[in-house]
C-alpha cells in the first residue's frame, strides 16, 4: 500500500495507522539493509521531470521503494501537502503565504529547497530575422494589460508593420505569475493583456510560435531547447545588454529577469513515519545538480547544493 491513507485534515501525526509496520520496522535508514516503502511526490509539472529522474534513479538503487511522481501543478501540490496526502511537493514558484498557513495549520512546516532554474524563454519564429533582442521595457509594453501594441512596428520603430501574434501560458500557470512578477511588476491584480493566445501546454505554444512567422511567445527553456530548428530565442536586455538564454546564462544568473527558480518542499513530518522518505530526499538533494541538468534545466553552482544538503541535515537531525 501507499503511505497516505487518510483524508483527515489534521496533518500527518495521526496517520501511521495503516502504515505497513512489517515493511518499515527496523529498516529505517539503516545502511546495507533493504529499504522499503513508498514515496509520493506531486506538484509542478515543470519540476515533474526532475522528480521523475530522481525517482527512477533512486529506485534503481533501492528496488524495494516505490516513488511515484505526479504533475498536478504547484497549487495542487501544496493543497495535497496540507491534506497530508503526499510526502513531497514540487513547485515552480515559491509557496504562497496562504498555502504555508494552511500547511502549518495542518501541523507541518514546509522547508524549501531551490533545485535550479528554468529560464523562461521569449521566442519568435525561426524565420523572424528582424528581432535581435528585446528589452524588459519592450516586453512590458507588449504584454501589459493596457498594452496598445498591435504590430511589431509598435514595439520598435523599423520593425515591420505586421500584426504581432502573442502566445503564452494561461493564467493558471506558474509561468504566467512569474512573468508578470518579472516583467510587469509585483502589485496586486497585475495581469497580462488578455488578447494573447494562451495554452497550458508548452508543446502547444511551441507549435503556435513555430507556425506563425510574426509571432512572439514565452515558455520554459526546455521546450525551446528541444525545438531550436523552429524557434529563435530572443536575447533579453535587462539593462546590461542583451543576454541570450542558455543553460550557462541561466545558471550563472546573467539571464535576468526571466530565470525562474524550481523548488521542492519535502514533508518533514512524513519522514518520521516513512522510513524511505529521508533517504530519498537526501539522495535527491545529493544529486540535484545532475537531475536538473538531465531534465534540461539550469543548475546552480556546486556551493549551492552543498548548502542545500547542510540545510537538510540541520532540519532533520532528529529523523
Amino acid at each position, binding site marked *: *500500500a501507499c503511505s497516505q491513507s487518510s483524508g483527515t485534515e489534521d496533518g500527518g501525526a495521526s496517520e501511521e495507522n495503516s502504515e505497513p509496520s512489517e515493511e518499515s520496522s527496523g529498516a529505517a535508514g539503516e545502511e546495507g539493509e533493504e529499504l522499503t516503502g513508498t514515496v509520493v511526490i*506531486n506538484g509542478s509539472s515543470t519540476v515533474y521531470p526532475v522528480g*521523475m529522474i530522481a525517482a527512477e534513479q533512486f529506485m534503481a538503487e533501492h528496488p524495494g521503494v516505490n516513488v511515484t*511522481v505526479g504533475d498536478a501543478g504547484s497549487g495542487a501540490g501544496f493543497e495535497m501537502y496540507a491534506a497530508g496526502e503526499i510526502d513531497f511537493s514540487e513547485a515552480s514558484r515559491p509557496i504562497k503565504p496562504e498555502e504555508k498557513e494552511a500547511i502549518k495549520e495542518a501541523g507541518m512546516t514546509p522547508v524549501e529547497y531551490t533545485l535550479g532554474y528554468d529560464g523562461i524563454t521569449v521566442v519568435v519564429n525561426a524565420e523572424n530575422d528582424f528581432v535581435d533582442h528585446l528589452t524588459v521595457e519592450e516586453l512590458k509594453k507588449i504584454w501589459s494589460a493596457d498594452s496598445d501594441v498591435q504590430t511589431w512596428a509598435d514595439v520598435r520603430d523599423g520593425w515591420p508593420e505586421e500584426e504581432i501574434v502573442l502566445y503564452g501560458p494561461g493564467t493558471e500557470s506558474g509561468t504566467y505569475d512569474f512573468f508578470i512578477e518579472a516583467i510587469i511588476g509585483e502589485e496586486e491584480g497585475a495581469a497580462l493583456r488578455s488578447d494573447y493566445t494562451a495554452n497550458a501546454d508548452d508543446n502547444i505554444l511551441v507549435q503556435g510560435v513555430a507556425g506563425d512567422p510574426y509571432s512572439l511567445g514565452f515558455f520554459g527553456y526546455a521546450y525551446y531547447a528541444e525545438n531550436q530548428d523552429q524557434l529563435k530565442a530572443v536575447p533579453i536586455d535587462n539593462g546590461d545588454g542583451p543576454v541570450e538564454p542558455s543553460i550557462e546564462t541561466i545558471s550563472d544568473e546573467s539571464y535576468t529577469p526571466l530565470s525562474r527558480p524550481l523548488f521542492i518542499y519535502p514533508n518533514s513530518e512524513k519522514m518520521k513515519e516513512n522510513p524511505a522518505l529521508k533517504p530519498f530526499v537526501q539522495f535527491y538533494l545529493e544529486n540535484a545538480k545532475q537531475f536538473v541538468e538531465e531534465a534540461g534545466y539550469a543548475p546552480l553552482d556546486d556551493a549551492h547544493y552543498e548548502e542545500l544538503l547542510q540545510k537538510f541535515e540541520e532540519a532533520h537531525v532528529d529523523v
Partner: protein
Amino acid sequence: MVNQDPVLVKRAKTRRMKNRFYQSLFFAATCVGVVVLVVLIVDILRKGIGVLNWDFLTSFNSYRPENAGLRGAIVGSIWIIAMTAPLTFVIGVCSAIYLEEYAKKNRWTRLIQLNISNLAGVPSIVYGLLGLALFARGFGLGRSILAAALTLTLLVLPIIIVASREALASVPDSLRHASYALGATRWQTIYRVVLPRAFPGIMTGTILALSRAIGETAPLLVVGAMAYVAFSPRDVFDIFTTIPIQIYNWTSLPQEEFKQLASAGIIVLLVLLLTLNAFAILMRNKYQKRS
C-alpha cells in the same frame, strides 16, 4: 398504368433524379465519418507504430524515452476497469430493473429518470470534482484506484442504466404476462424471463460504458492520477496511472520522442477499445438476429 398523365410522368423523372442525387449525398456524408476515422488511424499509426514493441508494453515509465513503457498505465487501467465493471454492472442493472420493473410510473420515477438522463450529460470533469471531494477526501480513499474507480462508476452509471432500461423495455410484456399467468412471482419473472432476454442489450450497454471509462482523462486528472508510476498497484488503495493519463503526460513533455510514445500509447488504447467494441457489436448482432 392505363393512361399516364404526361405531366406526372415528367415529374416522376425529376423525382427519380432527386432521389439519386440525395442517395449520393447521403452516401458521401456516411463516407466522411469513415474517411476521417481512417485518416485518424493512419495518422496515429504513422506516428506511433515505430516505437510500438513488446518492451513498450512491458516496461515502466522512464525519463529516458527509449526505456519508457506503458506497463504501469496498462495495469492501472486494468485495475480500474476490473473495479468499475462489476460496480457499474450491478448498480446500473439493478437501478434499471427497479425503474423498469418495480417503480410505479409516477412523478418521482419520472424525476429519477430525468435525473439520470441529466447525469448522462454532465461533463466528465464535474465528476472529477465530485470524486475528489467525495471519494478521495470525504471517504478518505485518497488518490487511489478505488476513488478513481468509484468516480468512473458514477460517470458511466447513467449510460448503463439507460441502455439496460431500453433492453428491459424491449422485452415484450407478453412474456411477463405469460410468466405471471403461470403463477411466477415478480422476481421469478424478472430473473428467469426478463433478464435472460434483455441480457445481450445490457451487455452491449455495459461494454460501451466501460470503453467510455477506459478512455476518460479529465476526471482522473482531477481525482489524482499520477504521471509517473513505476510499479504495479497491488491493491485498490494504491496510487495509479492509466493509459490516457500517461498519453496526456507524454504529450506535454518537451522531447519529441515522448510524443511518439504518446502515439504508440494511443494505438494500444485504440486496440483495447476496438476489441471491446467488437465484442459489443457481436453481441448486438447476435441479439438483433434473434429478435
